[in-house]
């Protein structure tokens, strides 16, 4: 059974509004975002439903939904929203809050999406830039799917589509320092 979280104050709605800079209450549930969204069919709850869930204070359900992980930030929805709500910013706010409060969606797809982003960020931390080939290899290793995209490799490598190396930054240290300060700031909040 779902219990509504709004006995008195809807603190979840307030947190999402503050983080996203949007006002979720302005949503009047027309559903244009759902029709526009290229990935709504993959979501547990399409954007319109997430908006309503936030209004109802359904924090756990919103955090655990895969919707904010599937959002590609293509901004097609907000471009067509008659209330001009920045829906991708709302999705991002829910995702950031879920990460901060340690809500883990353990479905394979979400785990893979998250792993990809973590590996990408670790490449920047190490080299200051993305090392495409290494990123792909690490993704395959860490998701235990060694042969993913291997059929593309011979052509892509031979044609030089994906180079073997990366030109790291001279001041890679500056990036690592930035990461350290940014992480500290994140914890302070």
């Amino acid at each position, binding site marked *: 059974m779902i219990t509504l979280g709004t006995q008195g104050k809807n603190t979840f709605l307030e947190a999402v509004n503050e983080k996203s800079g949007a006002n979720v209450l302005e949503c009047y549930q027309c559903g244009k975002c759902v029709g526009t969204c*290229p*990935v709504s069919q*993959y979501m547990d709850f399409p954007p319109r439903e997430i908006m309503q869930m936030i209004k109802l204070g359904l924090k756990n359900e919103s955090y655990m939904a895969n919707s904010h992980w*599937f959002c*590609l*930030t*293509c*901004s*097609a929805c*907000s*471009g067509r929203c008659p209330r001009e709500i*920045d829906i*991708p910013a709302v999705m*991002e706010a829910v*995702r*950031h809050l879920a*990460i901060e409060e340690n809500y883990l969606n353990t479905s394979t*797809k979400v785990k*893979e*999406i998250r*792993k*990809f*982003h*973590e590996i*990408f*960020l670790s*490449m*920047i931390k190490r080299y*200051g*830039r*993305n090392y*495409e080939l290494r*990123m*792909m290899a690490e*993704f395959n290793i860490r998701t235990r799917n060694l042969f*993913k*995209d291997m059929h*593309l490799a011979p*052509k*892509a490598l031979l*044609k*030089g*589509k*994906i*180079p073997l190396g*990366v*030109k790291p*930054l*001279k*001041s890679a240290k*500056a*990036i690592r*320092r*930035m*990461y350290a*300060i*940014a*992480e500290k*700031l*994140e914890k302070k909040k």
Partner: protein
Amino acid sequence: MKKLTYFPGCSAHGTSEEFDSTLKLVLKTLDVLLEDIPDWNCCGATSAHVMTENLAYALPMRNLVLAEKLENTTMGIACASCYQRMKVTKVHMDENPELARRINSTVVEEGTYHGSVEIKSMLQYAYEDIGLETIKSKVTKPLTGLKVACYYGCLLTRPKNITHFDSPEYPVSMDQICEALGATATDFDFKTECCGASFSISNTEVVESLSGKILEMAKESGAHAIVVACPLCQSNLDMRQPDIEKLQGVKYGIPVFYFTQLMALAFGYPIDQLKFPKHIIPVEGALANIGKVDPSAEKTKKTTKAVKAESEVQ
């Protein structure tokens, strides 16, 4: 000679090296001198803003601070994703000085952020700062007969309050550039649909489905080729095309060019400088249409113009 600060982005040294090198050829002809941001870093792409707010702003800000040290007023960015992250950072910092101070504290070594450099995508720079007339005047080998579907993707024109460029639904800038080169831009409905973007690695089936629809519509529009201005769009549509064909049981064989490759071709650069061998889908079939007279070409051209006129009226 004009000067322009240049942010190539990681893929310029990797998957989109042909975008970078043909852009440089084109700008040489157009008398624009590029100045790279010294020791630039990755903008954080999708991953930084998906996972954390601070890094998503801090990574672009380091580049913006470094760019301010060069004396140019404008920065041109090749990759659409880099462009979006830098522009979002600038707009949000301009709106919120308190946030700007907080983020600036993460890039202490580089100095103070002022927000003084204007940010443009290379498509926007070509369209607004160089202009169609100048582009037209440099064409020595018109692409007459080549029909192209111009695909912009999500990030070059959306969201409107960040990019302030062209239309978020039916942009025409790249179409007009291609027509200035002598090619015919088809009336293509999926100009700003998403290709699946960063799901290329982590959620490939979504990319195959979304990019598949774009290929289907491009074919439907009668195009011989797709033209893009984004490295991720290019690799999703080109590198994943054989798998999409297998999945859908259709043969598209549509090459995916960067708009700068077509510009360089029309400006008369020899074909061996345009990096066509890097394409997974061979380009020769599409290029063979150049110079052929197609009776339906005139009609398609009118359709695009009519649409443009219509959007101006609105």
